[in-house]
């Protein structure tokens, strides 16, 4: 269910960003999405939890900063020959400097999220036989 929700959210973000080319759409949706994902990590994965949370916290922090930069008009999304770029806004007086293609930025995040979701899904799965998740190393002789 979590994987389905993840993918459904990604489709919505993709559609809204490509239709409007509005940075607030992309950044606010991503921030909400990451917060949602952060809150819905697998409760059972005890060993993986600290590392997983640290990664997600970092991502939320980075996306939050980008979002803030978009909100105060430091960043914007610019169309160049039919391609959309996250770029410095004109008010920064540095010219229209393109940082990254929106598609590439989005695809990198989508790949990483899908990878983490898949990995965490397996490792957080409860082994019926021993009644615990796979991230706890089995003790020899126990």
């Amino acid at each position, binding site marked *: 269910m979590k994987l389905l929700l993840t993918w459904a959210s990604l489709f919505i973000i*993709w559609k809204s960003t490509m239709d409007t080319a509005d940075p607030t759409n992309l950044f606010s949706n991503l921030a909400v999405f990451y917060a949602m994902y952060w809150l819905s990590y697998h409760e059972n994965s005890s060993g993986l939890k600290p590392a997983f949370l640290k990664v997600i916290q970092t991502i939320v922090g980075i996306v939050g900063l980008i979002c803030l930069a978009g909100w105060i008009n430091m960043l914007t999304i610019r169309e160049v020959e039919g391609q959309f770029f996250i770029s410095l806004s004109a008010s920064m007086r540095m010219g229209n400097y393109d940082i990254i293609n929106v598609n590439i930025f989005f695809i990198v995040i*989508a*790949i990483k*999220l899908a990878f983490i979701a*898949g990995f965490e899904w*397996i490792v957080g799965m409860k082994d019926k036989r021993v009644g615990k998740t796979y991230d706890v190393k089995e003790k020899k002789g126990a």
Partner: protein
Amino acid sequence: MNMVGFIAIIIIAGLIGVQFGIYYVFRQKDISGLRSLMYSFFLYILPVIILLAHIEMYKSRHELVDYCKKQKINKSDLMSLEKIINTKRFVIFSFLFAVKDVITPKDNILLFIEIAKTHDSKLSFKTKQLFRTRGILGIVWQSLKALVEKFTNYAFDQYRTSRFKIKHV
């Protein structure tokens, strides 16, 4: 990039994540790196393994009746099973059962991990010998056969428990 490409990319990334998860689980269970990698690649053919197991179950369906006799199932239930065992209804039921099994990956992956671990404890004793006599393909083939066999047994159990509401054995 269009929507189809995007969907394909995240599905592939998700699958690779699941494969790495399985590899990690096997390493946690003290299975060697090479064999863990080999088992993790079986994930991609898991639906085929399940379908093969259900075909195998259908071929040996008459054993199902013998088993149910031993389980002391109601005579009426047993008679109804004997009636339909060679009919098209049973074929359709088996097909639907296989489809249901393929689209519920969680139970299959748990079982797959359990089977691979049990199989590996037997395999680890004679890996070097098998390498010499059969090579890597021989080991892969043997592991595949073991998986199909165990999944067939699991399909039998699933059928019995769902049809007659008896306890899982």
